């Protein structure tokens, strides 16, 4: 069936080009039926891409090695879920996934966004279609997943480290985030093209932005979990350029989600919001370029990459188009409202925006510097974690503090007396936590102590907000405390869902600080029968065992773990050998304590023939709060995303009251 896949992609390309040209013409000449036809073409492009995707999925499921792509990434003994995950394991499949998600989200956003006004939607369609045309062109003419060959007897198999459940979920989540950021950008560009910069584009894209941002955040956490369990160096984030590629647009989108509220509440920052949405989308395309062009290996690999030059041209066009539109429509974006006070909620949002953008651009410079230095000086100079950690601390600590300050300050202005009263409780909680932590020995890292004190302040302010809000709802007549709490959240999902997301970020910060600044590391070479200690744990090496798994030979060092007099059972770090792929992998052993959130993390770094093993052992306090943060993050995002019937009615009434001008 490769012919069907190829034909479907050619159809998708044709439909995307039609949606671009017909949509542009319809919007320019204000032709209703042609605009609808272009919208239908975008929907049809999704259907055609879905057909191509089904063909590839079927080939992967059947291990049809006559498809070059399938033979390069799978083997007969590869378990089915991993074989299917090869869809996004290679270049061609990843590009097809980009196109599938883009046309799917684009069609859904256009169809559901029709109520905001045909005039804006008419321009959104050709913008989305322009991006779809680029990706369709890549999968049709440059990197087709449907190239065929005489089927070899066996496929090359999948890189062992990719054979992990988290790696099955990580790339599609990230793609949903990257691609999802196309939607707010397309609506912003559509509004500028239509010269209608009212709030409609923001209302139409609010949930799409949140969805993309949520997926991007969750995708990064799942990727961190994969790195922690599978890559096995003892960490979860290494400031690798591929990791940074996802972090940069997420930071820009976080800034956008905050600043857009100022536009809705105060009518301010219209131009800044367009800048942020352009930055977030450009960084998402840049992230895809980084991971797909080969430029991270070297400039030479980039020059040899078939898609590198295409991506660079596309990014240049996107940025040039966005900037042209921005500057040409700048007079329309001027705001009449001004900031009334530097001590107000909108001011804290503004500070948070500046810090988030500064952090995003700092990371961008860290990613670009080695590439530029190689291009200019011929030698690749790397930027180490020290650079990133310095800026993370410099911008991250004030950001953490602002998360606690923002909710306590009123919109417009706040008096000193009001500040003293609202800050008293969270400040008290923070000081008490700081003193308690100092007594518990957290002073061994002054940075950690300060960060934990800030974290306590933020958690204090969040709890304070929920308590005061629930009390106010109860006073307004709620039947019971749970009902008052329910009403509080349901009447302002964005505000209180946002606080839940803030709580997730605090949990993340606590986990990261605990597992990095307060971790214990021990390395020792042991023979069977010998033991070592790491923090409060004793690890006795009992034996080395060999086993045969479905597609790998397993070698495991069995360690008996105890803490004081308490026997904690055994853990088995080791290595896997994959005969088809001709590769080895490190298989770490992790023992989690659900009560303290601590992990005992063991790597069998080197295993000798005589059974001697070089162990690397980490004790990571609070590391599990990072994964818990993921759950809370999803909960908070869902609360903010949940449809609000009252708001929908208000917006519908507004649309009904604004009669059409034809």
């Amino acid at each position, binding site marked *: 069936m490769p012919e069907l896949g190829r034909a479907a992609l050619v159809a998708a390309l044709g439909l995307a080009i039609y949606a671009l040209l017909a949509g542009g013409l319809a919007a320019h000449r204000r032709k209703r039926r042609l605009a609808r*036809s272009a919208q239908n073409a975008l929907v049809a492009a999704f259907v055609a891409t879905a057909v191509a995707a089904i063909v590839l999925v079927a080939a992967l499921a059947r291990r049809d090695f006559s498809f070059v792509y399938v033979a390069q990434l799978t083997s007969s003994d590869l378990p089915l879920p991993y074989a299917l995950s090869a869809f996004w394991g290679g270049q061609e499949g990843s590009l097809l996934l980009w196109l599938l998600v883009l046309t799917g989200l684009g069609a859904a956003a256009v169809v559901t966004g029709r109520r905001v*006004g045909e005039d804006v939607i008419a321009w959104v369609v050709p913008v989305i279609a322009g991006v779809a045309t680029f990706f369709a062109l890549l999968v049709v003419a440059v990197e087709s997943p449907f190239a065929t060959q005489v089927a070899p007897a066996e496929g090359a198999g999948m890189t062992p480290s990719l054979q992990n459940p988290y790696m099955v979920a990580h790339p599609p989540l990230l793609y949903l985030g990257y691609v999802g950021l196309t939607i707010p950008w397309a609506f912003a560009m559509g509004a500028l093209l239509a010269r209608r910069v009212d709030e409609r584009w923001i209302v139409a894209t609010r949930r799409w932005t949140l969805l993309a941002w949520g997926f991007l955040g969750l995708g990064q956490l799942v990727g961190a979990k994969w790195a922690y369990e599978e890559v096995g160096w003892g960490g979860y984030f290494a400031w690798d350029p591929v990791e940074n590629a996802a972090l940069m647009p997420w930071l820009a989108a976080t800034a956008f989600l905050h600043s857009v509220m100022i536009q809705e509440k105060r009518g301010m920052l219209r131009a800044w919001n367009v800048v942020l949405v352009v930055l977030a989308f450009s960084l998402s395309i840049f992230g895809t370029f980084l991971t797909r062009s080969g430029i991270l290996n070297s400039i030479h690999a980039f020059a040899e990459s078939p898609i590198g030059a295409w991506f660079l041209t596309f990014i240049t066009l996107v940025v040039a188009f966005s900037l042209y539109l921005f500057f040409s429509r700048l007079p329309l974006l001027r705001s009449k409202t001004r900031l009334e006070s530097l001590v107000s909620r909108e001011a804290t949002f503004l500070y948070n925006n500046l810090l988030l953008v500064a952090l995003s651009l700092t990371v961008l410079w860290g990613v670009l510097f080695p590439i530029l230095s190689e291009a200019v000086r011929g030698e690749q100079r790397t930027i180490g974690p020290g650079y990133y950690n310095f800026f993370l601390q410099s911008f991250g600590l004030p950001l953490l503090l602002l998360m606690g300050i923002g909710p*306590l300050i009123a919109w417009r202005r706040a008096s000193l007396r009001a500040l003293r009263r609202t800050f008293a409780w969270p400040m008290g909680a923070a000081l008490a936590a700081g003193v308690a932590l100092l007594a518990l020995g957290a002073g061994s890292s002054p940075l950690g102590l300060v960060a934990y004190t800030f974290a306590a302040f933020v958690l204090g302010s969040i709890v304070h907000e929920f308590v005061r809000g629930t009390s106010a709802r109860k006073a307004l007549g709620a039947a019971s405390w749970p009902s008052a709490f329910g009403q509080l959240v349901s009447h302002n999902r964005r505000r209180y869902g946002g606080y839940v997301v803030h709580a997730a970020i605090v949990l993340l910060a606590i986990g990261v600080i605990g597992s990095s600044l307060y971790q214990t590391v021990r390395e020792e070479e042991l023979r069977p029968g010998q033991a070592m200690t790491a923090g409060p744990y004793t690890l006795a090496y009992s034996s080395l065992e060999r086993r045969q798994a479905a597609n790998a030979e397993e070698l495991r060092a069995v360690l008996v773990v105890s803490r004081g007099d308490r026997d904690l059972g055994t853990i088995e770090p080791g290595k896997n050998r994959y005969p088809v792929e001709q590769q080895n992998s490190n298989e770490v052993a992790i023992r989690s304590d659900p009560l303290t959130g601590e992990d005992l993390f063991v790597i069998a770094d080197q295993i000798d023939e005589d059974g001697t093993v070089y162990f690397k052992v980490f004790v990571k306090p609070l590391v599990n709060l990072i994964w818990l943060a993921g759950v809370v993050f999803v909960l908070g995002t869902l609360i903010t995303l949940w449809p609000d019937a009252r708001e929908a009615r208000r917006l519908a009434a507004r649309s009904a009251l*604004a*009669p059409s001008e034809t």
Partner: protein
Amino acid sequence: MIALALGALLAALCVVWVALPFLREPEPADDTLAAPGARRLALLEERDRALAALKELEFDHRTGTISDEDYRASVGALRRQAAETLRAADAHAA
């Protein structure tokens, strides 16, 4: 052969779907894209923003985020603003 037939079917369905707006309305009375009135929409957005600000101020006052002093300093101006936007929206509608 099956692939060819499926490809042709897909292409035919896409063409019909794309042409549907013209097939449904071969000769429409009006084929112009509608757009809400800009001035009216701006006034309605202003009105909704002012009313939402007033509502938020009231709630923040109840929760104690805003002191009595700050509330008194803000509420008058916000009420005037809300009344002005309501009047302006009504006047434009009339």
